[in-house]
């Protein structure tokens, strides 16, 4: 199981508050999904790349930036050359990838560079109820786990000669559904129980206000980043 522990997180050049990152995720995904003009799209990607570089996620940032650039090429050069169905499909695929790239980057920014305790502390400062903070923070931590478990289940299924393909979904939808969902649910409920036990051992249910070693406060760097995030969202909508 993958969790983001304090030791695994590289020290950023400039520390940003989790609230700032959440706002970037919100405005970023809003901008990405609102059919932004290309200029706003490029701005958003560069902005997120800079933030990721700041958090020392260099490899990931460069990789996604390269994919984005590759996906931009058909729009700039190929659009007039490709007529007919092939062109439409190519354009649609590249644009869909380009919509989800910024969301993916912003999501990584929130999840991979923030500890759970800093995240909860930030949400507490926003006066969000426990009933929302705990499920939401667990959810953010759990999404990479679901992906990992899924890969492990697929590998195990392949090993036994049960592949999941378009064919198996079409011919035996119910059986395929069962084969996929049951192991996934089994491992999810197991891990959830372990996670709960670990959190209770650390006194999550003590009822007292939590303390956090990491300083969670809005610093001088946070406001410009927030403003930039908002500005890009406005640009994308006003386009």
């Amino acid at each position, binding site marked *: 199981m993958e969790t983001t522990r304090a030791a695994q997180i590289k020290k950023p050049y400039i520390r940003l508050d989790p609230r700032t990152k959440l706002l970037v995720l*919100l405005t970023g*995904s*809003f901008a990405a*999904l*609102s*059919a932004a003009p290309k200029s706003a799209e490029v701005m958003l990607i560069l902005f997120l790349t800079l933030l990721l570089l700041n958090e020392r996620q260099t490899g990931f940032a460069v990789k996604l930036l390269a994919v984005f650039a590759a996906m931009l090429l058909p729009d700039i050069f190929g659009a007039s050359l490709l007529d007919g169905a092939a062109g*439409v499909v190519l*354009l*649609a695929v590249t*644009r*869909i990838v380009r*919509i*989800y790239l910024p*969301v993916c980057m912003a999501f990584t920014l929130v999840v991979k560079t923030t500890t759970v305790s800093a995240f909860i502390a930030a949400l507490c400062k926003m006066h969000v109820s*426990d*009933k*929302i903070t*705990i*499920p*939401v*923070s*667990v*959810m*953010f*931590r*759990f*999404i990479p*786990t*679901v*992906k990992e478990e899924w890969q492990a289940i697929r590998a195990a299924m392949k090993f036994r000669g049960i592949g999941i393909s378009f064919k198996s979904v079409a011919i035996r939808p*119910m059986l395929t*559904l*069962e084969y996929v*969902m*049951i192991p*996934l*649910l*089994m491992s*999810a*409920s197991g*891990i*959830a*129980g372990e*996670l*709960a036990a670990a*959190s*209770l051992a650390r006194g*999550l*249910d003590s009822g007292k206000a939590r303390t956090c070693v990491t300083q969670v406060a809005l610093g001088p760097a946070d406001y410009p980043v927030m403003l930039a995030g908002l500005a890009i969202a406005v640009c994308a909508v006003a386009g």
Partner: protein
Amino acid sequence: MIKKKLTVKDLIVAGAFAALYVVIMLVIVSTASLTPVTWLMAPLLCAVVLGTVYMLYCMKIPKRGAILILGVVVSLVLSSTGGWAAPAWGIICALLAELLAALGRYGSKGWYAASFCVFACSTAGPFWMLVFAKAAVLATIENTYGAGFAARMDALTPPWIVPVVIGSAVLGGFIGGAIGKRLLKKHFEKAGVV
């Protein structure tokens, strides 16, 4: 059963199941949105597949408020993709589902399956934008998928499509709930997970 409050352990389990629910939902929706017809079928498909997750979740936390928490988290995720109508609608669905579960005193699998018929409608939330702001939705689609796709989408979505999509979600919820009930019995009750 009714009086029991949600503990921190329940909230953590809720987060884990919400993650599973959201991931599967997003995988289905993003695959389905490749063509206009399957895009309209996304709520149905989601409901059929997610019924098992929902049923197991309810069996693990048979308490007041559990469904609402899942609904709020799912709505938060939907809000980033479907405009303002989606979260409002999602929370209404979750509240109604909570009511149905309460009728079953948070212990009846039949009532939980019935509540999923309502809960499953939350994925139909983004479609409300077709009623309130169709032009904007079509402009977005045209920008992303091209004019041909948008024209087909326009032809496929007269105003009465929203009730049809919601109806399909209810149907999917019924199927999904039934599958969920069956799989729970087959796998989880035997293994002692619930």
